[in-house]
């Protein structure tokens, strides 16, 4: 299995290289002008030429690609020549963690909500199922800026009041980035711990976790950690600020989970062991959540991996619509200032993240299914 993982990693890196090259060429060919173009009105012809030479923009396209790639590999994200003008590395780190926080929080909520509603949709009368599916479709296709606007109209005043009551000092710069990183990572770790615990409890006891209980447990574990490092107040303050993009993303993302879960669950419910469980007189909720639910999850996860680029696209759109300073806002700022290396870095970050998640999913699948990745 280790060899399979290594092979997939190699193939993945090759695709990532192809991806970066195609993106670089397309972005450069399709978008006219360069970093100097927007400020050409204020500069003389010679100054423009000097600036171009200094930034390496006068080199041919393949050379620029190699230089950009070299800087990315040796010095990390946001460290290209142009980056030295604006200090892109810090901005990129802060934006990436800001996106990560919204992504982790809202995806967790959307998954719990969507899969629960999907289970209910498959379990209840057909009319309820169809109704819930309609709800899923119509929230999924809502226009992101409109959702952000509505939430803003509804919540803005209340959020201000809550933030005043919290009274946390505003954190800025590196401190904010560090806090965002801590928060995203603790939330992720807490979900993994709670998920594993819930699985263990379901296997070994008669008790099973409800989605709401799991959410409360994750919040308690993460909040406990923040309190222990003395950052609870500022962490809560950041969460309040992030509430509008988070809620918007939940509204737009849960519908797809709901629809896939419903289809998958309907397949599971036709299995004979479900009939047996019901015939034994087990309470319906128990059959639904303990016997059928877990077996309906794999297709939902597979769909999550395939649909990841679209979820990320939704995040980019929402962030720039509600002015949350994440990767989405930074991406549009970078294109507006024709900062192509930074634009490329953000695209690579998105692509690399997708690739990493897919690799993990593939290796997990190979670990669970002995037929994959071994000679027949």
């Amino acid at each position, binding site marked *: 299995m280790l060899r399979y993982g290594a092979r997939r990693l190699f193939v993945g890196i090759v695709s990532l290289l*192809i991806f970066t090259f195609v993106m670089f060429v*397309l972005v450069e060919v399709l978008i006219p002008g360069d970093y100097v173009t927007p400020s050409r009105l204020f500069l003389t012809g010679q100054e423009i030429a000097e600036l171009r030479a200094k930034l390496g923009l006068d080199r041919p396209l393949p050379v620029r690609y190699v230089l950009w790639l070299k800087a990315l590999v040796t010095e990390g994200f946001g460290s290209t020549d142009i980056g030295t003008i604006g200090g892109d590395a810090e901005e990129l780190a802060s934006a990436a963690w800001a996106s990560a926080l919204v992504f982790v929080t809202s995806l967790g909520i959307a998954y719990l909500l969507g899969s629960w509603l999907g289970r209910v949709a498959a379990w209840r009368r057909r009319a309820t199922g169809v109704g819930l599916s309609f709800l899923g479709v119509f929230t999924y296709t809502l226009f992101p800026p409109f959702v952000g606007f509505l939430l803003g109209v509804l919540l803005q005043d209340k959020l201000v009041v809550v933030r005043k009551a919290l009274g946390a000092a505003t954190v800025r710069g590196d401190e904010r980035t560090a806090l965002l990183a801590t928060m995203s990572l603790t939330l992720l770790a807490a979900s993994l711990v709670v998920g594993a615990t819930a699985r263990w409890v379901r296997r070994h006891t008669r008790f099973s976790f409800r989605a709401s209980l799991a959410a409360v447990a994750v919040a308690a574990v993460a909040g406990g950690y923040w309190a222990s490092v003395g950052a609870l107040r500022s962490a809560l303050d950041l969460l309040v600020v992030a509430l509008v993009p988070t809620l918007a993303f939940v509204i737009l993302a849960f519908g797809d989970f709901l629809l896939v879960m419903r289809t998958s669950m309907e397949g599971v419910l036709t299995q004979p062991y479900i009939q047996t469980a019901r015939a034994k007189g087990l309470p319906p909720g128990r059959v639904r959540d303990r016997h059928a639910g877990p077996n309906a999850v794999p297709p939902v996860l597979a769909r999550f991996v395939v649909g990841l680029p679209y979820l990320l696209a939704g995040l980019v759109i929402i962030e720039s619509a509600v002015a949350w300073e994440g990767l989405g806002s930074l991406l549009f700022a970078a294109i507006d200032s024709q900062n192509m290396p930074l634009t490329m870095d953000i*695209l690579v970050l998105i692509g690399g993240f997708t690739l990493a998640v897919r690799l993990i999913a593939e290796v997990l699948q190979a670990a669970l299914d002995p037929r994959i990745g071994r000679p027949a």
Partner: protein
Amino acid sequence: MRRLRPRLRRLGSGFRALVTEPLSAAGISLIVLFGLGALTHPLLRATVWRHNMYNPVTGFDLSLAHPSSPSSVHLLGTDVLGRDVLSMVLAGARPAWVVALVAAFVTAGVALLVGVFGAGLGGKVDAVLSRVSDGFLLLPAPVFVLVISEQVDLEPLAFGLVYGLVTGLGAGAIVLRSQAIKVMAEPFVDAARVAGGRRAHIVVHHLIPHLIPLAALYMLLAVVGALVAYGFAAFLGQTARTANWGSMIYDGITFAGYGGHVPWNSLLTATGALSLFAAGFYLISAGIREITGLR
């Protein structure tokens, strides 16, 4: 004629299944509604809306203070800039249709072509095509078109084309390729080969018909993404010269900041139109998934 009739019958029964499944039935009616909307706008402009104040881009009614509530002259009222909202919403259906159709057929065409070529030829061609598809799969198509359209004013046609190419080469090609490999391993393909069918015959008459439902599914999903992305590109200020829903929403949200009240008549109709049109395509794909069990 003798070969056509069973095919038409099969098509008919497939259509009946789509119409009886509630999700896709709702989707089809929504799309028909928007088709009528796009068709009636030029007709209305040529008959009852001949006055220039019904122009969806430059119209202005001098006799009213704007924005105005619905009235007998303006059935949905006027927006902040004095344009007739109903006329704008109907006119916005046209670019949306262009984006939807172009994105749909380019996605399906490219995905079918790449998937069938890869699976049919195998070997090095397949390996190269697969790597290219893997690369494109890493990129969210909406993000890519938004990156391009932030600096280049893409017409609806070009927008659909770029979007369709990215989704078709990426996700579409990968899914169709794996399905094509599965179909090529079916017994009926061996039977056709033993009966003396050549490769081209097998691909055209046995492989492609079995790929069509899946291609349709992906093409409909691509339309949803393309419509939202196009709406957002317009929202960000691109393609604002044509009447479209994205810029209506932008105007509605922006001008809500002035004068303190939200112009709900233009805001809600435009978001409603965009979301329902996209939902129409998504509903049909959800219906196909329910009927065929494809994913």
